[in-house]
């Protein structure tokens, strides 16, 4: 090679693009985050004397509440990774609840799951037809599907459930899954938890919550998370699917059938959201289908997915955070909520120190201010008004998003209408 030519090794280093290569792999970041959260919670629990923060029951509740959100978020992940924004998750979830109830009361919970997936997938199919084939704005289509899902299920319930349950807004009772526990481990952890040892008991409580009274649905959802990761990031199918969300024109030019992959992704998305609906119906305590049952969980799922940076691990974190905060406020109300505020102060303190180390004075000052404010709240009230605790999950999500530095990155062609040719 002639000397005047550029040798790649000496090629001028391009100006660094804003995003850097990651030195730490994603799973490690996730593990660190989880560890950090556990430490934070057990410290808070110790300092405030509120053991509920890490009790088995709280964790179990969190898991149950997070489940439908997690599944909806996974649905969102599939669609958006293929470049289709899915604001219709709520509608597909509603379709899922109806399908689950309809099949479930007749043939049991497994049939409910399948039917929910099918009904959700129908919603997904409609979304795919509108957005992929007809090039309709994704948000328009999603909004329409939310309306259609709600209208259709109400209509169908009046026709089909009314004669059975004597109530046009409710299905007959649906049989539920049995739950399973790793009993030996669970008992051992239970003893550990009961000893009230700082840190150790907290971890035991959390772990015990995760291995006790587990519904097959929970295991399935975890499988879905792992499966989605493997499928989307480790197979050719996933590569092709994601390429449709990053640069569909390039994908098409390489012989990827973009329409097909978008269809598959959006239908899968609907099916997952539908299963999310089934998770709601099959939750202990739910009679079956109930009008208004999803109550915005599809939207929360969407938020969890964005929160999780369009990644399976991240959205698991988002759903868990929401479920945890919701579980906490439902179970124990104002007091524990205050403990959470205290935890937020601790978190902010850590962040402020980090910012000081990095010599980011402004961010640090902002953090100190926020921490001071929150601490004043913690100090001055005994119990947060119940009107506000109900929405603790919303507040926590907002605060976490506001505090966590925003490095979110959506698929490059997400929401862009793609036309072949």
């Amino acid at each position, binding site marked *: 090679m002639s000397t005047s030519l550029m040798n790649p090794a000496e090629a001028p280093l391009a100006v660094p693009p804003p995003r850097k290569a990651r030195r730490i792999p994603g799973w490690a970041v996730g593990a660190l985050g989880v560890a950090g959260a556990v430490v934070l919670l057990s410290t808070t629990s110790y300092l405030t004397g509120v053991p509920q923060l890490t009790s088995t029951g709280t964790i179990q509740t969190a898991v149950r509440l997070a489940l439908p959100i997690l599944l909806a978020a996974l649905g969102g992940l599939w669609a958006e990774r293929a470049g289709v924004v899915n604001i219709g998750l709520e509608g597909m979830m509603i379709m899922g609840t109806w399908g689950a109830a309809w099949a479930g009361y007749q043939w049991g919970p497994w049939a409910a799951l399948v039917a929910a997936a099918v009904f959700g997938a129908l919603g997904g199919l409609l979304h795919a037809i509108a957005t992929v084939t007809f090039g309709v704005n994704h948000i328009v289509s999603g909004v329409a599907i939310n309306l259609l899902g709600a209208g259709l299920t109400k209509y169908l319930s009046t026709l089909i459930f009314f004669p059975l349950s004597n109530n046009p807004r409710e299905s007959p009772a649906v049989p539920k899954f049995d739950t399973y526990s790793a009993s030996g481990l669970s008992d051992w952890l239970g003893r550990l938890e009961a000893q009230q040892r700082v840190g150790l008991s907290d971890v035991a409580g959390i772990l015990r919550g995760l291995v006790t009274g587990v519904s097959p649905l929970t295991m399935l959802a975890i499988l879905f998370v792992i499966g989605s990761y493997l499928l989307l990031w480790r197979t050719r199918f996933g590569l092709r699917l994601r*390429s449709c969300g990053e640069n569909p*024109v390039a994908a098409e*030019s390489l012989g*990827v059938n973009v329409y097909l992959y978008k269809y598959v992704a959006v239908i899968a998305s609907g099916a997952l959201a539908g299963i999310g609906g089934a998770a709601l119906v099959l939750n202990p305590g739910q009679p079956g289908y109930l009008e208004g049952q999803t109550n915005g969980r599809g939207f929360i799922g969407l938020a969890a997915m964005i929160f999780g940076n369009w990644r399976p691990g991240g959205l698991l974190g988002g759903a868990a955070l929401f479920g945890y905060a919701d579980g906490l406020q439902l179970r124990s109300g104002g007091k524990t909520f205050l403990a959470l505020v205290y935890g937020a102060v601790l978190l902010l303190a850590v962040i402020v120190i980090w910012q000081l180390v990095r010599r980011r004075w402004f961010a640090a000052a902002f953090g100190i201010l926020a921490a001071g404010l929150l601490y004043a709240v913690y100090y001055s009230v005994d119990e947060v008004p119940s009107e506000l605790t109900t929405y603790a999950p919303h507040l926590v999500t907002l605060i976490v998003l506001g505090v966590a530095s925003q490095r979110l990155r959506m698929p490059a062609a997400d929401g862009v209408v793609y036309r072949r040719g």
Partner: protein
Amino acid sequence: MSTTTPAVVLSGITKRFPGVVANSDVHLSVQVGEVHALCGENGAGKSTLMKILYGMQQPDEGTIEVGGQPVRFRTPADAIKAGIGMVHQHFMLADNLTVQENVVLGAESLHGIGAKARKRILELAEATGLTVDPAVLVERLGVADRQRVEILKVLYRGAKVIILDEPTAVLVPQEVDELFTTLRGMQEQGFTFLFISHKLDEVRAIADSVTIIRRGTTVGTADPKAVSSRQLAEMMVGSELPSPETRESTVTDRVVLKVENLGLVAVEGTRPVLDDIDLVVRAGEIVGIAGVEGNGQTELVETIMGMRKAHHGRVLLGDRDLTRLGTLARREAGIGYIPEDRHRQGLLLTQPLWANRILGHQTRRPVSNGQWLDLAGAKDDTRRIVEEFDVRTPGIDVAAVALSGGNQQKLVVGRELAGDPVLLIASHPTRGVDVGAQALIWDEIKNARARGLAVLLISADLDELIGLSDTIRVMLRGRLVADADPATVTPEDLGSAMTGAGATSAAVAEHAPGGAHARGAELEGE
């Protein structure tokens, strides 16, 4: 080298778009193992023809033969199967995927997506000299590397006929040479190339034969070794070849733009993107900035325009300190700005031309009275630009997207020269623009300079840079590392300076050796 059956034969190809006939009865025959160039003005229909050959678009009429067999490509997959590969004018890479993922996408059945695929990529890179790290994200690559990835993609699929659509538009001469070396090497291994370029010298340097397209139809085939660039250009447009040269100097000693000690940091704690830039542009002077893409030119321009916030340093226009002002205030102070990417930064594509006239001038006459728009004024002035700058359009109410690239660029130039700016910042003002439009834009910039306009010119087209500029500064890794005298410097010298290979000519005066900035110093991601 020609054999009996041509590699590819296109006959009677016609392709219509709404309002446009992109190809009309095109004939093209490419021999096995040759580099066949395709030349034509902007919008002549070259890319469209190639997309048809690659199965991305279906011809309305006409037939395609590959290796003597008539074929019908419904998708690129069909074309790939037939051994045809295409490197697009606009790179077709997914930024957020790795090089390896981009390469194997769509061809996973060959070697999977894992270690085997990686091995194969490295083999190919070895064989052709297209070295690049398969594990790196594409968004972190510069243009030359991206092009390597594009060619690797094609090779990975086993293509024997490779279409290169304007591959050299964004490369510096050294990179072009390197590309040509690669192409020649591959040609010897039996690959066939279809090569599109506006740069006729390059065509003559690399091509074995050339087909010329004018207004969507083939006007002839020539032997590039036997014709001059001028003859080729005349076949393309039927007019004379313009030149960017500016003869007499109009430089005054009145300083218009003064940049002092300007610094910019992309991410806290990383290497600076702009490092202590000092720069002066005087009235009547064109200062050219040479540099390989990605060395901070974009950032420099955007910092001067106030689109990025300087970390330290000052920007002065005349006596006025602009450092703390926003982009609009800087524009109001008298800066015109031709952005490097007219589609992304210069135009509102779906809006009518007159709305595009308002952009950047929304507070100034004649298109606005401050807070209220003056639509009549905007329309009148748009008509003026259309006339003066020879913007070929059916009217001023059509959407900007309906115009060809050259005409879009003329509109942008007309807009930025409106309202008598004192400083024009022109980033790649003629990129991807055909010779006719190019000549007009050069003339307009020269005229404005003669009227006392100060111009900061950034261009990858070294002929343009050398021809237009009064002074050339070379930018490397965020620093101005050398000055060059446009009267004596050659593109090759400039190219060496730009890549940091060291001055090879007296025409380039290097500054004190730029402290080698460490490559590392990267923060962990996410």
